[in-house]
C-alpha cells in the first residue's frame, strides 16, 4: 500500500523526440516518455509505437499531376530508467524499426535497429512528502542527452529529397536533446507539461534533419485501490520541426520539409505491484507539414514496465 502511496508523485518523464521516422517521421513521428511511476527507482520496459503518413505532391514536370506515397512505421523499443542518485535519473532507449510503404508505386520495407539514445535528467524540484493527497505537490525535471548514429542509414533517399519523413532505421547523425518537464498535482488530479528540443547535426551524406520541438500538456487523474493504480489522462501534444538541409555545408535548405502538428491525446496507465502497462492514442487535430503535402496519421503507443 505504501508503495502505491509513494507512487502518487508521478513524475512525467521528459518529453523526448526520436526522429527515426520523423516528423517524423517522422515525420513527423515522435516519442516521449510520458508520465512515469516513481514508486520504484528503476524500471525496464518494452514499448510499441505505430505511426504513419501519406503524401500527395504535385508532379515536378506536370503540376496538375500528383505523386503519392505512404509509410506505416512500427517501432519496438526497449527502454528503462536508472536512478543514478536522488537527484539524477538516466534513461536509455534501444529501438527496432519496421517501416513499410510505397513511393509512387514502388514499395519499400525497412527494418533494423534504430538510433540508440540516452538522457540524463536532474530532479530540480520534488516535494519530500509526496504521499499527502490533500496538498499541492510539484516536480520539475530538466536535462539533456544524446542520440547516437547507430541505426542503419543508407544516405539521402528519394523520400528525403521529396521532403518526406525519414523512413530509414537510422538518421545517420548524432543529435543532442535538451528537455524540461513539470508536474503539479492536488488530491489525485494532476497536470503535466513537458518540452524537449532536439538539435540535429548533419550526417555523412551532408543531409541534416530539421531541429525539432516536442511539447505536451496532459491532465491526469490517479485512481487507487489496494495494489492497483489507474491513471486516465488526456491532453494535447504540439510538435514543430524546422526544415531539413539537403546539404548542410552548402546551406541547401529543403523548404518542402518540416512543419507543425497538434495532437489530441488520450491514454490510460495501469499499475499492479511491480508491473505497469500503458496505452496512448493521438489524433492530429491540426497539422501543416511539408507544405501540406504530407498528412500525418493517428498514433498508437503501448508499453509494459517492470519496476525494481
Amino acid at each position, binding site marked *: 500500500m505504501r508503495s502505491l502511496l509513494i507512487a502518487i508523485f508521478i513524475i512525467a518523464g521528459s518529453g523526448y523526440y526520436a526522429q527515426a521516422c520523423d516528423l517524423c517521421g517522422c515525420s513527423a513521428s515522435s516519442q516521449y516518455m510520458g508520465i512515469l511511476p516513481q514508486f520504484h527507482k528503476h524500471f525496464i520496459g518494452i514499448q510499441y509505437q505505430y505511426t504513419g503518413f501519406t503524401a500527395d505532391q504535385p*508532379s*515536378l*514536370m506536370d503540376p496538375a499531376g500528383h505523386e503519392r506515397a505512404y509509410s506505416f512505421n512500427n517501432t519496438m523499443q526497449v527502454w528503462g530508467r536508472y536512478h543514478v542518485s536522488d537527484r539524477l535519473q538516466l534513461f536509455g532507449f534501444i529501438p527496432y524499426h519496421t517501416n513499410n510503404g510505397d513511393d509512387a508505386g514502388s514499395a519499400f520495407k525497412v527494418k533494423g535497429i534504430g538510433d540508440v539514445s540516452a538522457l540524463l535528467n536532474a530532479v*530540480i*524540484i520534488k516535494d519530500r512528502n509526496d504521499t499527502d493527497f490533500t496538498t499541492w505537490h510539484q516536480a*520539475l525535471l*530538466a536535462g539533456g542527452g544524446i542520440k547516437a548514429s547507430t541505426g542503419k542509414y543508407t544516405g*539521402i533517399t*528519394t523520400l528525403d*529529397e*521529396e521532403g518526406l519523413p525519414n523512413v530509414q532505421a537510422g538518421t545517420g547523425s548524432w543529435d543532442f536533446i*535538451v528537455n*524540461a518537464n513539470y508536474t503539479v498535482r492536488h488530491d489525485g488530479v494532476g497536470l503535466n507539461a513537458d518540452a524537449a*528540443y532536439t*538539435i540535429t547535426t548533419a550526417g555523412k551524406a551532408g543531409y541534416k534533419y530539421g*531541429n525539432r*520541438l516536442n511539447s505536451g500538456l496532459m491532465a491526469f487523474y490517479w485512481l487507487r485501490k489496494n495494489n492497483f493504480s489507474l491513471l486516465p489522462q488526456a491532453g494535447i501534444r504540439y510538435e514543430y520541426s*524546422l*526544415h531539413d538541409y*539537403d*546539404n548542410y555545408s*552548402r*546551406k*541547401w*535548405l*529543403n523548404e518542402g520539409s518540416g512543419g507543425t502538428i497538434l495532437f489530441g491525446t488520450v491514454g490510460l496507465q495501469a499499475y499492479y505491484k511491480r508491473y505497469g502497462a500503458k496505452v496512448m492514442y493521438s489524433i492530429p487535430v491540426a497539422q501543416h507539414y511539408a507544405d501540406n503535402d504530407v498528412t500525418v496519421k493517428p498514433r498508437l503507443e503501448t508499453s509494459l514496465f517492470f519496476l525494481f
Partner: protein
Amino acid sequence: MINIPKSLMVFASILLMASCQKKDTTPADLSKVTVTFASPLAGQVVHVNDTVQVSAEVSYNAEIIGVGIQIIDTATSDVVFAEDHDLHTDHYSIDESWVNTLTDSTVLCAKVTVFVANSDERTERLTYFTAKP
C-alpha cells in the same frame, strides 16, 4: 540552488539560436546548367522493339532541385516516355530506358528539363534521333 527563471531563459535562448536557418541564396543562372548526352546520339536510328537508352550528365554550380526526362514524337507531339526526379544535388547522372514501339518512321526528341533552386524557371536540352520500322 538552481535559479529556475534563469534556467528557463537559457533553455529559451538555446531554442532561439537553434531555430535560425541559413539558406543558400545564390541567384539562379540557368546558363550555367550543363547537360551532356551520351545516348541517344544525334541522328541515331532506332527500330521497333529496340531499347533506347537515355544517358546524360547534368551539372550546375549550385543546387539542382529536379530533372525531367521525356521522349517526344515530333510528328504528333505525343510524349512516349516521361520520368522526373526530385533532387538536391549539383550533379546527376540520367540513366533511363524506353522500348521503341512506334511502327512509323518519325523523328524523336529526347528532352531533359532541369529545375534549379531559387528560380521558377526551367531550362531544357534536346537531342534528336530517328525511329524507323
